[in-house]
């Protein structure tokens, strides 16, 4: 799941080398914390959160495959 989030995020930002993802694994849930360059935060969130919502939808599918729930948090 971490790999997938990295892949999606790197395709959307100007500084792919500065994308970092931490995966915190629980029993039924996974928390993915993503950090990007300050000027890329908007690119990962999108207007009215449209991009981050789409990212969450795709990650949700990946999590469902493992029978888990996933949360994606953007850290600033």
């Amino acid at each position, binding site marked *: 799941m971490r790999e997938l989030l990295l892949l999606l995020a790197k395709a959307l930002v100007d500084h792919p080398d500065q994308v970092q993802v931490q995966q915190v694994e629980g029993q039924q849930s996974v928390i993915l914390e993503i950090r990007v360059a300050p000027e890329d935060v908007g690119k990962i969130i*999108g207007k009215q959160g449209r991009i981050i919502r789409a990212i969450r939808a795709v990650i*949700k599918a990946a999590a*469902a495959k493992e029978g888990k729930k996933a949360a994606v948090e953007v850290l600033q």
Partner: protein
Amino acid sequence: MRVAIKRGRTVEEAVQEALRELGVEREQVEVEVLEEPNRGFLGWLGARMAEVKVTVKVTKSQFAREFLKQVTNALGIEMRVSEVGRSDRYVFLELEGEEAGLLIGRRGETLNALQYLVNVAASRVSQEPYRIVLDVDGYRKRRHEALERLARRVAERVRRTGRKMVLEPMPARERRVVHLALQNQSGVTTHSEGQEPYRRVVVSPSK
């Protein structure tokens, strides 16, 4: 990425030579001039050939297909991605494989999200004006037909009861299918209400 570096008496000559070697048209490449030509003094002293670096540009479609392969790999599923059609405004990509349902999601939620992300990412690599439309195992076509059936059923009920009905939130493309399906149906009118992404079609009795 395919690249050719060529020399010629002029920049244009060098570019033409590179295009011949790569077997592509001018619009498909990016040209970087490495060396401007110089005639030199009296035609020979210090004369320099032009040198250019010609790179074949990645198209949106190519990028999208490669990106989708990586995404499905990361999801741990095996999918084939192919271009199945194109028009001025759209390129249609179809994914086929075992776990189609996973990529579609509830009411196409995952598919729509993925399509949106592919378009945002692809427009970063190329300025081509078309959009990428994704489908998985013919889902969109089936959904289109299901929406038309739903629209007719709802219209029938609105006519019978004389009361308006509000449909579930849908993306713009799906609302459009409903509007079009009911455009010529007598006794009902349609419009949309609410803010994206919760915008819904309302079917009301026409007075």
